[in-house]
């Protein structure tokens, strides 16, 4: 089955991001396809490369990057939500005249249409959030 996953909450603050990532891994192990993971609301904070959790804790952002690198999963951060919360890729940072970017490898920033298109293309769309 083909899934689109929406992540609505930030990492560490809320379990939704963990559960979403565990779902993605479990689905892949069972041979399903993850068409896209779309990060919205505070979920965009899953896509910064600047987080440093304690060493004995899981590293959620790296977990996403590994999923992208290993399985080619499309990790999409909503641009409108990202701009509000300071998640920037190099192009967007330049366009906004900012002095830094922070997007993690494997993520890309795009529009809300990617969520709707994911819903159209996938057999199931699953929302993880509050």
């Amino acid at each position, binding site marked *: 089955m083909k899934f689109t996953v*929406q992540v*609505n909450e930030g990492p560490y603050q809320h379990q939704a991001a963990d559960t979403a990532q565990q779902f993605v891994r479990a689905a892949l192990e069972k041979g399903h396809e993850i068409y896209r993971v779309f990060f*919205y*609301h505070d979920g965009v904070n899953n896509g910064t490369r600047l987080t440093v959790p304690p060493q004995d804790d899981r590293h959620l952002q790296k977990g996403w990057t590994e999923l992208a690198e290993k399985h080619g999963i499309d990790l999409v951060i909503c641009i*409108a*939500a990202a701009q*509000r919360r300071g998640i920037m890729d190099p192009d967007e940072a330049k366009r906004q005249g900012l002095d830094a970017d922070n997007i993690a490898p494997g993520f890309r920033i795009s*529009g*809300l*249409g990617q*969520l*709707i*298109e994911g*819903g*159209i293309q996938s057999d199931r*769309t699953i*929302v993880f*959030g*509050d």
Partner: protein
Amino acid sequence: MSTVKKFLFLNRKAPYGTIYALESLEVVLISAAFEQDVSMAFVDDGVYQLLKGQKTDGIGMKNFSPTYSALGDYDITRLYVEKESLEARGLTVDDLMDLKWEDEDDDWAEKDSIIVVSSAELADIMEQQEVILSF
């Protein structure tokens, strides 16, 4: 894109206090561009999103409630409001904005966008959907 799916946007949160309602509305408006079969549902504190007479000056937030009036122009004409959620909050449909859409198949007659449904009816409506995005 030729596929048309039934999308339901389920709104559960109050309009202010968290950003869920505002960002939900942003997705709804984008979805209109994809020519899908879009409807919305309002349950729990989500019914407050449709309250008339919202004034937000005191909390420094933009009052985005006028946007709901524009939904009809985007062919989003079904806003289901759960009866039990209204009653639990001491509200009736008269406390909500008078949202209308124009039916081009009926000589542009103005029709109500808000449809009050019971919890059981809403469950049936949700059962018929292909994509439910909940906020």
